């Protein structure tokens, strides 16, 4: 348990096992799982994706599907009460903005910690979050 239990901790996840580890770390910071806000950011769809062309897939349907997928992954009772939010757009910006709007106390984010050229090429969501966040950010490295 951390020194001071937080009232609201934001945890961005991408459904990889590693991102769920960050969620377990975040659990230590709160008294109740309902203080955890799990965020999943979806990117924009290609305008030529068949589902988009025929109007059968939109942000609402994607949100419903993604929420369902996350709930299935977080079926363990220890995650009961966790708040799930699906956002759209650039992950780094969306995470920082969400945390600020909700006046979060802490962001716990996983990072694959690439260095050198891979880092340059890929950029870093965690880095962007650290730069833009209004609150402390805990980066979990793999």
């Amino acid at each position, binding site marked *: 348990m951390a020194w001071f239990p937080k009232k609201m901790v934001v945890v961005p996840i991408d459904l990889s096992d590693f991102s769920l580890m960050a969620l377990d770390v975040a659990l230590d910071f709160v008294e109740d799982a309902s203080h955890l806000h799990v965020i*999943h950011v979806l990117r924009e769809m290609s*305008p030529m994706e*068949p*589902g988009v062309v*025929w109007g059968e897939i939109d942000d609402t349907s*994607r949100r419903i599907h*993604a929420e369902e*997928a996350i709930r299935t992954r977080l079926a363990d009772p220890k995650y009961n009460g966790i708040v799930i939010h699906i956002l759209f757009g650039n992950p780094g910006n969306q995470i920082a903005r969400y945390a600020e709007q909700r006046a979060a106390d802490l962001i716990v984010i996983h990072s694959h910690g690439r260095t050198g050229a891979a880092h340059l090429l890929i*950029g870093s969501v965690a880095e962007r979050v650290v730069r833009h966040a209004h609150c402390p950010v805990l980066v979990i490295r793999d």
Partner: protein
Amino acid sequence: MKHFRSPHSCRSACLPHPDLSRTSRTSFLAAALALALVLALFARVPADSAPEIVDDVAVALQQTADQQAPAPAGETRIQTVVNRWVEGASNAIFGVLFFDVSGGSFRSTVIDRDSRLPVLDESGNPKTATQALPLLIVVLLFGGIFFTIYYRFVNIRGFRHSIDVVRGRFDKAEDEGEVSHFRALTSALSATVGLGNIAGVAIAVSLGGPGAVFWMLVTAFFGMASKFSCCTLGQMYRQVNADGTISGGPMYYLDRGLAERGGFFKPLGKVLAIAAAIMVMGAAVGGGNLFQANQSYAIVEYVFDLKYQHASAIYGVIAALLVGAVIIGGIKRIGAATSRIVPLMAGVYILGCLVVILSHADKVPGALALIVREAFAADALYGGFIGVLVMGVRRAAFSNEAGIGSAAIAHSAARTNEPVREGIVGLLEPFIDTIVICMMTAIVVIVTGVYDIHGAEKAAIMATAHHAPEGAVLTAVAFGQVVSWFPYILAAAVVLFAYSTMISWCYYGERGWIYLFDHWGGIGLRSVILYRLFFVFCVFVGAVANLGPIIDLSDALLLSMAFPNILGMILLAPLVKKKTDDYFARLRAGKMPVVR
């Protein structure tokens, strides 16, 4: 880092899938190997190892291009630069993909296309030239025949069922997927039906003679089985993402399908998948972009008699902006509208063809007889038997993409839990594309006699219209013979076909990009804008360049996908066969409820 790309969840229909985004050493090595494979394929053949790569299309079209536009202004500077680049690239790629497997054993007399007389060499004897039997053509044809036999003529026994499926009689709303069978087929057709059906066929008939049409039909028949195979595999190994969207296509089935076979097949699958991903990007740029932009401009230039020397550049900029509006600007409505009206446009085009054909109804039986007779006539004008065969196979595969694997990207989005069912839908594609639409163009071009325009007649057309009668222009000449305003309808249809094909192919290409770059920490989606920018730039290049090098480059880029795809599909064929047999057994036993 790989966070926050669309996560992948794999459900019951899928196999446990290795995390694609993990930059493991294996995937890096596989990528390097695949890149080496592609580069090796695309590298120039040393001049001494392939001394006589005879390319009929390039030579013939270059001849017409040389005679064309004698105006002193000639090419603009932009055109010269573009042509030099396109030619260089096409020569390099062409050298390998079309290398002669017969070792130069087929030769035919060279005939001058204008005078129809044999060309003589310095000593006064008729000149002969090698008729290459390109490796690629052999692979495509062999693949189609193999799948037809191995799946026990699924192209015939599944035909009726495919129509029932497309009619929605087996649609189930609760199945996973994005769209219905009919919509998936329409989306795939919007990429397939394009200038290949209009300009491509005209090229086949004018350079390969009416006999090429016979071989186009034969290729399409066997191609139905290839298409069945790739669409079934596309469904079997598609990835159902957490947000309900689908990622599928040759990259996915080569990777995941061969990984399932284990052992040596796993790294091989990775290499083939990465090669397919790189090649689908090239195919999108070639057949899905350059050729479309080029031939749609050719027809607009002819029909509206554009004489301004920068007209092609202006057309290129406008077309690029319109393509960019959808793929970069994200104006979904335009993309949706164009994709949806493809069936309507195809209907209008077929109707136009029927009017032309009916006005020459007396010549139709003769034309059909000519198609069959010329297929085996070994006419030296068309490069002998091999020349005609190669032309037919090449233009058919270019038009209907059977064996190429690209269409599996669209078909994998179909809403079904029965992979074979979408494969059955897929086999309709070469039928509609080639056996129906291409055949229409072919009969139009033959009954009107425009394919055989040469000598004085050709000079007369060039003098009045300022354009060589070649490619898409031939169909406009044919349409113009019947009703004076028909070419305008044709031009409108062609522009829309080209537009829908370009944006649909951009989607295929970017799936390749996303698959590839997801290996580097899941940056596929984040970096796809780079590909889209390049694609838009190529629209401009296509409009400005000459047909000769464009058609070679487009063919090479598009058809090369057949290598990794057909190899992978043959290795995976036993799995598909098992599923197919099971599916048909259940269908026959009445275990598949018909919805309506």
